[in-house]
């Protein structure tokens, strides 16, 4: 038994509390950087102790909490959780560095960022469904404040919409968790909230929820799926995302897109894929997920193409990229699933660069409207360099991590979902289109004199973006460190699921 995970969560929590209590901005940001830096260090130690060839949960720990309800504080990681823990511990320190210049209520700002780290780490490592849900909810609160205190003009609307929309989805998920828990209790005769225990007993459920309309199994499955895809978000439950992103401060957007959206994808791999073969109509569920995935890819792309606001465009591009995750998970081929996992990791890095670029441009030029910008490359050479790298990664340039992820998903999903993959391929053209078109109009071309004097991004901003770009290129050229552990976990997961369904593996 090890205690890396609880140590990491505890340090982030303590760091957040200390940050809230600090008096000056300098103290707050140093506390945030040190605390998240320690988390990064612990996650790297975890990575070195993590054996990618083992398929099950590793580095696990268990502490008793509420025995009468069968609730324990149990944590652990496998190929699904470990990369996301690493991603969280990379993104948060870099966000702190990027937001080094924050002046408004700095102690709360950095404290809330650390609280977000607490929440996502808990979600990615909890093995107890109850504790998972608690962390799932904890994540909402700091983000609500990040949007509503540091946000843009329509921050109130965006913050409330974000909170209520995602909270309702979580409650639906909670209902489904209740049902799983009760079912397992009835079967084994003792309460236990362990995630794998609940999932294992799902197959023994039977009966109609509403006679001849929906079975209990399907209802639970859809409830869980709903909880996850709203978070991702997938079309048609995506409308909270553009509002939240447009109004959120840059650091908030970065955390939202890079980490919070990944919670939904994590849920797909951790919960939905293992349950898929046991639902009463697996074929329909796979089709449903594939439709949602492809719809998100295409609709997200087309909406991104139509945006005038650079940040909103990036927000829609997130929806489109997260569509690959749903599609890859639905295809149930080992490499498509691990590709989808890698897409989560890769998108987490890439989207940071994109949102950070939007933040720098907004700060420097005072606008993010693509049509009002133009030719800023001359005045912002450093930004242009990293931003271009980020945009190219986002459109899937070979040699960058996004290419590997999307290629794996599309190539391997074709075996089971050929029609959907062909449809998704159309998205690629337009993805390249809106990225390049936006770059061309906003960054290159002749300088728009109305913008007046604009300056390049601060060194700490460019530095954190550069680190991300280096990581994107590193994982684009050498994805094995994370891809191996993903494949090791995905292969048995998918073999079990697909074997029962009799689909091609």
């Amino acid at each position, binding site marked *: 038994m090890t205690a890396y995970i609880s140590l990491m969560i505890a340090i982030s929590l303590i760091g957040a509390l200390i940050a809230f209590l600090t008096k000056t901005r300098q103290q707050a940001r140093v506390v945030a950087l040190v605390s998240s830096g320690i988390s990064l260090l612990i996650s790297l130690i975890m990575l070195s102790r993590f054996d990618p060839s083992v398929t099950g949960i590793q580095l696990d720990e268990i502490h008793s*909490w*509420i*025995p*009468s*309800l069968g609730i324990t504080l149990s944590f652990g990681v496998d190929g699904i959780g470990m990369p996301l823990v690493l991603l969280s511990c990379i993104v948060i320190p870099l966000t702190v560095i990027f937001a080094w210049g924050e002046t408004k209520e700095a102690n709360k700002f950095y404290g809330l960022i650390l609280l977000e780290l607490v929440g996502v780490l808990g979600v990615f490592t909890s093995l107890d469904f109850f504790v998972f*849900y*608690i962390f799932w*909810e*904890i994540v909402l*609160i700091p983000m*609500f*404040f990040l949007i*509503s*205190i540091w946000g843009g003009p329509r*921050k*109130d609307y965006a*913050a*409330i919409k974000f*909170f*209520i929309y995602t*909270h*309702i989805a979580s*409650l*639906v998920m*909670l*209902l489904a968790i*209740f*049902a799983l*828990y*009760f*079912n397992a209790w*009835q079967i084994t005769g003792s309460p236990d909230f362990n995630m794998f225990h609940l999932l294992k007993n799902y197959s023994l459920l039977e*009966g*109609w*929820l*509403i006679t001849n309309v929906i079975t*209990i199994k399907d209802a639970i499955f859809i409830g869980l799926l709903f909880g996850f895809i709203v978070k991702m978000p997938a079309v048609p439950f995506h409308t909270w995302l553009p509002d939240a992103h447009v109004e959120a401060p840059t650091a908030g957007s970065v955390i939202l897109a890079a980490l919070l959206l990944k919670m939904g994808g994590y849920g797909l791999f951790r919960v939905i894929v293992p349950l898929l073969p046991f639902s009463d109509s697996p074929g329909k569920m796979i089709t449903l997920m594939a439709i949602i995935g492809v719809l998100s890819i295409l609709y997200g792309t087309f909406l991104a193409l139509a945006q005038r606001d650079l940040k909103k465009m990036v927000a829609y591009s997130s929806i489109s990229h997260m569509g690959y995750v749903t599609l890859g998970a639905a295809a149930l081929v080992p490499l498509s699933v691990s590709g989808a996992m890698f897409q989560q990791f890769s998108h987490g890095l890439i989207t940071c660069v994109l949102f950070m670029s939007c933040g720098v441009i907004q700060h420097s030029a005072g606008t993010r409207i693509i049509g009002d910008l133009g030719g800023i490359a001359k005045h912002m050479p450093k930004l242009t360099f990293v931003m271009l790298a980020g945009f190219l990664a986002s459109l899937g340039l070979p040699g960058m991590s996004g290419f590997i992820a999307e290629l794996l998903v599309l190539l391997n999903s074709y075996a089971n979902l050929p029609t959907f993959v062909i449809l998704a391929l159309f998205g690629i053209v337009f993805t390249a289109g809106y990225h390049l078109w936006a770059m061309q109009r906003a960054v290159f071309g002749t300088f728009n004199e109305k913008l007046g004097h604009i300056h390049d991004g601060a060194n700490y901003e460019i530095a954190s973006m550069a680190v991300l770009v280096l990581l994107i290129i590193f994982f684009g050229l050498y994805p094995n460190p994370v891809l191996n552990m993903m494949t090791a976990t995905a292969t048995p997961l998918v073999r079990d699921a697909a074997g029962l369904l009799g689909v091609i593996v």
Partner: protein
Amino acid sequence: MSFILLAPEILLTVLALAVILIGLLVSDKSKNMIGYVSAIGLAASLVMILGKTGEGSFFYNAIVVDPLSQIFKIIFLVVSLLAVIASIQYFKDNRNQDEYYALILLATVGMMVVASANDLLSLFVGFELASMSTYVLAGFEKKNPASLEAALKYFIIGSLSSALMLFGMSLVYGVSGSTNIPEILAYFKTAQVSGIDVLAMVFLVAGFGFKMALVPFHMWAPDTYEGSPSVVSSLLAAGSKKMGFVAAFRVLVLALVAVRADIQIVFAILAVITMTYGNVVAISQKSIKRMLAYSSIAQAGYIALAFVVMTQMSIAGGVLLALGHALMKGGAFIAVAVVGYMVLSDNKNAKNTDDISNFAGLGKRAPITALSLFVFFLALAGIPPSAGFIGKFVLFYSVTIEAVSTASTWLLVIVIIAILNSALSIYYYARVIRYMYVLPPEGEKIHEPLPYVIALLLAVIGTIGIGLYPEPVINMAMNAASVLGVR
């Protein structure tokens, strides 16, 4: 038979009488110490109840001490203790404060008698003692017309509900020939159901419904909670309302036997209407006390779900939510009292001190109060880890179990409505949170008086403590529910 189990009640009764006597003897200036004496007395009773385990029945089985009575006594004592600690500041230098504290103590004794009542008569006496005292407390700010209106409304509706309840009881007595609850239960187990039984139950449900403020018996609650002094509202909403629940838990099991479960549908409808109405109306309130009143109506709707399924676990959930609500709502009203103090220290003649606009920038002006209120609001909305979440969790969960095991779709629909309601409630809580933390402050930072801070922190510790370590409390609630002998 040892009366030591009744020591807490005896202590408080003696203390209440002593407080009146002391009030006559000491000068107005030294009356401030009475608050401390009362707080110590309440704390001592609480310690006695927490420390002393044991069961017994007294006075020809009219009063019982069992886990159910004890957990509700804990609720009442906690609420009164919080209210009294806050009152030390709120009624500081008031020349009538001796009467105030005596009334609070008597009200607490009344509630504790209700919790222990095992006989319709002791139940009624307890109800009346608590109600009479709180009628006066609601109107304690006698120069404030709103407070008088609150008291009058509360008095008239309260009397009506007592009359309905008493009539129901007399019918039950007429049919069964006894006022003792176990004997009545024994009678109904063998007897044929008649129209009179149903009528009796209708009157009892209506009588308790008024006390619990279930829709459509709720209309007194918003006016009363708004007009009363904030610390008294805290006592009313968090404490005396729970009287109705404990009485209903004890008596309506009887209904379950008497009229063979049909009553569950009635409660299902009442619960759904109550929670939805409470939450929807709370959204549009400008006065925070009114908003809290409607939110408390909604919470009563959730607790009423316990009657819908009437299993051991659902009753335990109801008890847990009642306990959580006592801490959260009691604390929230005290926080409103601090805001009132803050506004009045800016401007002596300020009206409507609980208007939402006064909460702007509270995070900067009164950080401890704002943080406490933030915790209470999230807990009321059912966000983990908090007492509110644990209560809702056990309650909703018990209804889900019942729905799945009896394959009843309508129960499941009710749970879904309850959960959606709980999501809806976030909207109006978040609105106040936004005022507190997002909007700029409209005045200087104030010094938060120590009694308020102590009361708030105690409530916060209780709220989060139960959320983080619910095991002992869940066990207590399950024990309490086992007393009723339901599944």
